[in-house]
């Protein structure tokens, strides 16, 4: 069937350059056109860090390389990148053209590895998959080539944690830190590789973990499985980003079982966290109950992560009702049943209908026909603003593309993340009290 990408909500595999960029000390080397990185970077804020796309070495493929091949250019670019840029790890990523013309990327990268240079390569041509798959390939490539197979001593309580794709999920770092804190409360020592204060040393520490935790419906599953095969580390794949008390407590129980933490210990943490969470909910419950323009029904048009997470939160914590939900991240077919199943596991036997689609126009037309029994509450990307205006709805931008909202380090994950999302929802509601 012809696929129409209308209102694109993902980019291509090379977009996973941002996964590399988010590991302090690591920089991508792009064997691609000169403007690929700038384009892929277009819609994300938070890009002027230590390495940014205009620092990424790039072979800047021109007609000459298309005709004669770009092997020499790649070699010279890596060689000079090692001289010009201070980095601990260089990750060669390929774009479409270099893959089609058949450049010897692996061979050239391996030559540098053999000289003891910190160079790895990952094939990320745009036509092979989107940035969410690319994120997984990049992690797998780094773990496979950069980590040696040698046995290391396992560190008691150490768990590796992975969540949403960096710089694609606007809340990637806030969420990661929030989940880290939750794990710390359980007495675990979470190890993450992204963001301030983390980096290459944390990658090296990965084999020492007792458990890998992946909090994501499908992004990153391949790399966690690779770690299982390579180091025998068991993993917990928790498909729902926990937002609010219900899901976060459930998550903590699942982690406790997987990590061998006693139920009593976990329940102590959960009880204390829920008590604090409900202190706030109690104080603001009148706002949630009495803001006269809010209806009970909502829809989410987002990646699998937020469609699922917001649906769980609003249904199970707030007692709201999901209408049809949409997943726009081109989830691979084999990953869909697990996600569809999760949408059926809501309180009181509520099940949400979910559709996977990349046709934004069609999604909007479907939502226009939905009965919200009041003012529509719409979660999604920048594209949903127009839909919301058309339906005179309330709109919260939670996922890519996010062009009219700035997220620095805030988080939607955990107990506090639920409160943050409520702030966003009711700020929109309170700014429009007239029906």
């Amino acid at each position, binding site marked *: 069937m012809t696929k*129409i990408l209308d209102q*694109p909500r993902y980019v291509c595999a090379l977009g996973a350059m941002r996964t590399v960029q988010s590991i302090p000390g690591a920089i991508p080397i792009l064997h691609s056109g000169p*403007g690929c990185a700038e384009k892929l970077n277009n819609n994300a804020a938070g890009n002027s860090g230590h390495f940014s796309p205009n620092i990424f070495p790039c072979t800047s493929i021109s007609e000459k390389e298309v005709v004669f091949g770009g092997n020499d250019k790649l070699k010279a670019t890596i060689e000079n990148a090692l001289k010009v840029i201070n980095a601990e790890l260089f990750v060669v990523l390929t*774009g479409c053209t270099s893959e089609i013309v058949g450049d010897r990327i692996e061979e050239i990268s391996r030559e540098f590895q053999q000289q003891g240079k910190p160079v790895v390569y990952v094939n990320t041509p745009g036509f092979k998959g*989107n940035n969410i798959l690319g994120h997984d390939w990049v992690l797998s490539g780094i773990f496979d080539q950069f980590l040696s197979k040698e046995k290391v001593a396992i560190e008691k309580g150490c768990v590796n944690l992975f969540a949403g794709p960096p710089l694609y999920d606007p809340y990637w770092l806030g969420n990661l830190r929030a989940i880290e804190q939750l794990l710390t409360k359980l007495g675990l020592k979470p190890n993450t590789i992204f963001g301030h204060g983390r980096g290459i040393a944390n990658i090296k520490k990965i084999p020492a973990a007792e458990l890998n935790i992946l909090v994501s419906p499908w992004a990153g599953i391949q790399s966690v499985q690779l770690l299982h095969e390579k180091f025998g580390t068991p993993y917990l794949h928790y498909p729902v980003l926990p937002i609010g008390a219900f899901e976060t407590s459930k998550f903590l129980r699942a982690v406790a079982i997987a990590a061998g933490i006693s139920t009593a210990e976990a329940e102590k943490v959960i009880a204390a966290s829920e008590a604090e969470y409900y202190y706030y909910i109690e104080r603001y419950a009148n706002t949630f109950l009495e803001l006269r323009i809010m209806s009970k029904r909502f829809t989410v048009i987002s990646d699998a992560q937020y469609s699922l997470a917001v649906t769980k939160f609003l249904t199970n914590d707030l007692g709201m009702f999901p209408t049809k939900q949409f997943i726009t991240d081109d989830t691979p077919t084999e990953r869909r049943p697990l996600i569809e199943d999760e949408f059926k596991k809501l309180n009181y036997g509520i099940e949400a209908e979910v559709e996977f689609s990349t046709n934004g126009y069609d999604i909007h037309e479907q939502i226009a026909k939905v009965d919200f029994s009041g003012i529509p509450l719409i979660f999604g990307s920048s594209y949903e603003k127009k839909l919301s205006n058309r339906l005179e709805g309330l709109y919260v931008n939670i996922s890519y593309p996010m062009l009219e909202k700035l997220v620095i380090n805030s988080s939607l994950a955990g107990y506090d993340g639920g409160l943050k999302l409520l702030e966003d929802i009711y700020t929109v509601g309170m700014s429009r009290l007239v029906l």
Partner: protein
Amino acid sequence: MKIKSINLSSSNVRTRESRLGSITGYHGDLVDLTQQSRCGHVKNRERCFSQSSTCLSSCAISQLTRIMDVAVIYHTPAGCTAVAPGSTVIGEQLAVKVAKKYETVIIGSDMNEVDTIFGGLTSLREIILKTIDTYHPKALFIASSCVSGVIGEDIDGLVSDLKDELDIPIVAIHCEGFKSRIWASGFDIADHAVLQGIVKPPKEKRQVINFKNFYESHRQEITELFAEFGLETQFLYTNASVEDLSHISESVATVCICGTLGTYLGNALESLYGVPYIRTINPMGVIGYESWLREIGRVINKTDQVEAYIERERAIYLPQITELAKQLTGLRAVIGMGPGYTYEVARVLQELGIEVVWAAAWHYDRQHDNGQPPPAMDFLEKHAVNNFPMSVTDQQNFEVMNILKRHQPDLYFSRHPGSTVWAVKQGVAAVYVADEYMIFGYKGMISFAKTILDTVRNRSFEKNLAAHTAMPYTDWWYQQSIDALLEE
């Protein structure tokens, strides 16, 4: 004058390298560059190391999607369509100004591996028909990409077939990113498509001036300015409709806010339909604005009105500008921008008494489409207060940082997303000359001068940030000469 390089019977535009002798690598100075240009050839120096920069397709598509109610169908994997969200949001924000709804869309074919082997023209055709059915666009642009280019998809053939079936303009645009290192070629590609598919031969003369700019932040001021001379303004391409564009061959003249942006369209309209193209330095700073106005006055036969306007405005604004310039005199600056701005801003800074210690342009056009050197270079050759060092740096940040480290200017002026922050991290204050009207006319000159003053009077941000960050480059690099990685 007929311009041979403009050929509407082909869907391909010759690149700037071949049409305009443009280059992306040079290291020298003003006198040398202008001398080489005069002799008809400036030698390009390739790089053996480069950092990521820009793709010509971004320029082409960002121009076309400013037109109202059109669809760009992009035959490419999902990465290239990353331009869509920004384009949509900007379009919606800009349309507010004219109280219209922005309905232009970018639709991707999301090419996958199978498409790269067997081709994706069948699905592309379906997507085109579906798009027409869904959005009812007033014109269609079918864009190729690196992938569709390398695998040889016959987009021209498809467009030619569909032309007979459709009652709206459909144009193929060739924006394979690898075909030119000069992303401003994308402006030419967009202009070529508009000329090929939308502009109709004139039926009558209209008292309208074509005004090419980017985001029309001063739409009202420009409208009032030309109204003073009895002209209606047709802004290009932001907020213009397909119907508007079909008539631009009937206008009295074409002017442009930036020569790099306007060369193809302006010269083509003159060559094909006799619409005079106003080729002057850009209307930036006092000298630029007045030269531009006077040439407009000459072309539209309104010299007296223009002179009266200049005299009136001068009396109001010149004393303020002179006063500000006194406070700026003696500051030292480095410039890093596209060529449409580098040489213009160099002139403006000299007007304000600021010393240009280095001018880096992202590329250099030895000539414009009329065969003449870019007016700003011509002006600098004749009037620059000193011969300053220059380079053509293709947005190569490592070269710019080396320049800044060596010359330690008071200010860095840049005009490209992501460029200011590196200067600031290196401790140099940066002014982002983003909006094309930032130095427009007398009033723009005043606010620009005040922005510079504010920047040098409060250096807190760069001081704080530089103290808390490290640069990504090695000491080795800073010890090399600026052109060390340019091949001979």
